[in-house]
């Protein structure tokens, strides 16, 4: 019997395999639902980013209008902290710019950390951190549960569907008494099992990949965007390699010639270990090895630093109020300048005192990320999640690069505005505020990183298949 004949025979059997088609249908529906969720989240972010842009522009336009009004009517009195012609007034009352991170072309496939970490941060020039929570207002229950996106379907459900479709390929034939008939065709056992597994894998994984591609293109995916086609190709290759791992594992377990029930128990236990227990255990271990510094203790330090620097602010800060120096007695212009100078000095001192704390957070973050680079190899699920999030632009590393850019922009805006804070001259540089620009890492660099994960998964697949192939070289005795 040639391989083609064998394929045709298996195809006839597969056509009547209700479990396989049910698994495929469920997988495609789940991916469709996951993609619609991802697209909805992406659209939500785009709406927020657009709104942030319009708010920032509208407030600057308001500042210009108000400044023109005030210039035209010098008799009108306005408190300096809401005067758009003073640096501090403009920053406090009108500067509502946001630095936003646009979703990457594949963002809808894996929500990753994007629902938890900020994607639009308001530009503020106070000491780090200003108490302006910049995260999305989301139901914390949803953050706890996570999103049902394509990555979730692939990581958790695709393996179960693969196992359901292939856990008893050999054992079922034996238990039904049809194996001798099948082998009498004649066909080598391992070739028959290999072709059967491969066909089932092609149907489930091909269906999954097709569902993702069709869904993305229906939603307006632009393959011409920078790196989009390359990243999509890698994403799909990862899906095939990750799903292939579970088919290969089922092939190996089938090759051990156990009962269907035992196969199922072994495979589900492997799934449980690799998808649930190992990642959760590593998460726990990582938290112990590189615990994030306590935010409560950080706040304690921040308050201590603020209190210390304020006390060092000296007589001016004692004399003038922090936010409402107009309440203080004496000459207003003198108070304003004194207040502003002191505020700048206090902020600079607070920032200096907090620098070691900031470094501590950053260094621990980097240690965690470096550890994950190694830990991802401990489980195919971790590997897939890591690479899928990165290719979708919703990983932690991209968020950190974005937050670095935000800080760079904050410093640029601060350098731009600081001279205007204590200046007697009117501020009118509304159009000269430094713009925010986030530069992603090159698409090829990201692709190279993902290719390493892909190779690792492919190597695992090959090793499992080879082990199964060797085990199946023994003749079938019963």
């Amino acid at each position, binding site marked *: 019997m040639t391989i083609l004949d064998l394929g045709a025979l298996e195809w006839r059997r597969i056509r009547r395999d209700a479990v396989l088609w049910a698994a495929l249908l469920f997988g495609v529906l789940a991916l469709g*639902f996951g993609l619609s969720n991802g697209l909805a989240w992406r659209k*939500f972010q785009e*709406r*927020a980013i657009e*709104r942030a842009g319009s*708010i920032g522009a509208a407030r600057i336009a308001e500042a210009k209008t108000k400044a023109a009004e005030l210039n035209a009517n010098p008799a009108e009195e306005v408190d300096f902290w809401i005067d758009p012609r003073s640096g501090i007034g403009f920053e406090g009352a009108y500067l509502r710019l946001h630095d936003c991170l646009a979703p990457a072309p594949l963002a809808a496939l894996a929500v*990753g*950390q994007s629902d*938890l*970490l900020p994607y639009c941060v308001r530009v503020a020039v106070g000491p780090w951190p200003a*108490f302006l*929570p910049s*995260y*999305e*207002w*989301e*139901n*914390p*229950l*949803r953050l*706890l*549960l*996570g*999103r*049902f996106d394509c990555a*979730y379907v692939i990581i*958790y*459900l695709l393996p*179960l569907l693969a196992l359901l479709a292939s856990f008893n390929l050999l054992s079922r034939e034996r238990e039904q008494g049809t194996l001798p008939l099948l082998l009498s065709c004649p066909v080598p056992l391992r070739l028959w099992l290999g072709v059967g597994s491969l066909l089932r894998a092609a149907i489930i994984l091909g269906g999954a990949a097709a569902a993702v591609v069709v869904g993305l293109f229906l939603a307006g995916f632009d393959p011409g965007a920078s790196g989009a086609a390359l990243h999509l190709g890698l994403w799909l290759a990862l899906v095939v390699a990750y799903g292939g791992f579970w088919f290969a594992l089922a092939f190996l377990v089938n090759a051990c010639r156990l009962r*269907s*029930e035992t196969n*199922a*128990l072994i495979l*589900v236990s492997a799934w*449980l270990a690799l998808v*649930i*227990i190992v990642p959760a255990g*590593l*998460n*726990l271990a*990582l938290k112990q090895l590189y615990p*994030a*510094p*306590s*935010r*409560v*203790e950080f*706040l304690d330090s921040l*308050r*201590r630093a603020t209190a210390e620097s304020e*006390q060092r602010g000296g007589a001016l800060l004692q004399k003038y*109020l*922090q*936010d409402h120096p107009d*309440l203080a*007695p004496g000459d207003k212009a003198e108070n304003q300048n004194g207040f502003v100078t002191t505020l700048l000095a206090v902020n600079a001192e607070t920032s200096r005192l907090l620098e070691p704390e900031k470094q501590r957070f950053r260094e621990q973050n980097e240690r965690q*990320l470096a550890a*994950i680079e190694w*830990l991802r190899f401990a489980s195919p699920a*971790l590997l897939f999640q890591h690479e899928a999030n990165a290719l979708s632009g919703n990983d932690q590393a991209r968020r950190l690069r974005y937050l670095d850019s935000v800080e760079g922009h904050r410093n640029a805006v601060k350098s731009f505005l600081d001279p205007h804070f204590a200046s007697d001259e009117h501020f009118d540089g509304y159009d000269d505020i430094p713009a925010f620009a986030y530069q992603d890492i090159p698409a090829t660099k990201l692709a190279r990183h993902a290719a390493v994960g892909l190779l690792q998964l492919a190597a695992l697949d090959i090793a499992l298949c080879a082990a199964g192939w060797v085990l199946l070289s023994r003749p079938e005795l019963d």
Partner: protein
Amino acid sequence: MIQVIAAKEFLELRRDRRFVVAALILSLALLVGGAFGAANFLDLRRQAEAAGHNERQRWLDQGDKHPHGAAHYGVFAFKSPRPLAMIDTGLQPYVGSLVWLEAHKQNEMLYRPAEDATALQRFGDLTPAIVAQTLIPLLIVFLAYGSFSRERELGTLAQLTSLGVRSSDLLLGKAAGAAGALSPILLPAFVFSLAVIAAVTPSALLWDELARFLILALIYSAYFAIFIFVALAVSAWRRSSAAALAILLVFWALTTLVAPRVLSDWARAAYPTDPAIELKQALESSLAAVEARSREDARKDLVEKYGVAKVEDLPFAFEGAALQAEEESAYGVFERHYAEFFDVLRWQNLFYQFGALLSPLTAVQLSSMALAGNDLEQHRDFVLQAEANRRVIHTMINDYILKHGVRDADGQWGASAGRELWQEIPPFDYRPNAWSAALAEYGAGLGLLGLWLLCALAAAFRAAASIKAV
């Protein structure tokens, strides 16, 4: 007869090395999760207590200054975790545990610990609650899928029925056997947790915490019972063990992996929220409108009431009255905007709660985090109590400005306060809800959990009654 069957089932399971290994792994997971949970709880409680103490000290030591300067400096309120957070951290990593009580603004909580975690966090924490919600049901499936079907395959079911054993006795005996097999995992965990909770809970909260723990144990027992009876029903219904196992694994995956996320996404689609940036902008616009008006209204009222030409002629510092008027005008705005947002979240959570129609896990998750003091309602309760404290602080400060303001030689009003005022201002003291109030929101979910149990029992009795021995 039930006892005999239960003893036989238990003995068989005990001899099954696969079960012993699985039981050891789960016990280890419970132990490790519980130990880290306890360490984390003690650490968080210590941090909250120390930071709260330091914050109060800084407040008292801030020296003499204009009271409004102190109002802007504000204070931080810290939420100390409940001891049951050792078992279920619930929403705590996603809401944070501190809130800034400053002048003019009702703030949301800051610093969500999950933001400092890695993407590994999304695989879930290995807390005892997660183990109980997802892994123990899977162990139950492994324990019970072959209870009837394997007996049928081995031919021993015919022997049993030929002895005249009643199907209900057989079912209850097998259920008791499965429950007995779980007891070496769950009983030590229960006793150990009870002892730790009793040891670390402050005496004022002890009875409430113990009541919460016992109710939690009851809820999880009902949840495990559902899986036991569903597994026995399927095992009695299907002729082959492999088919029973496949069906039960699909049931487990649908109820624990698929349903929670799908229901949460449906809830979001049914009750959407707007982007935070729009919510904040709307809040800022509303505040700007009322605050500007409130100052002007206060000026008019006082000038008219005291029959003076301008506020500088009032016999007290107008700024105190104006600041208080601004504060009070903002109360309603904050309440309205936050209430609108949180009402949507409540509807989402209610939707999720009714998702217990599809999966009993949703009811268990919500009531478990509520009993551990880490659900949305208790988060809101903390924020609202903190807000009440903020209002007391700023009312006292503004009242002080109004009553103790002094006029200088130029006729300008000024004020200075010191330790005497800072001491008078009460520290924030969070009063958590009793267990009954914590569970009040989850009656529907718990009712549905009860319904699941009844249906599982009915299905199991029906399947056992119609079982065929061959």
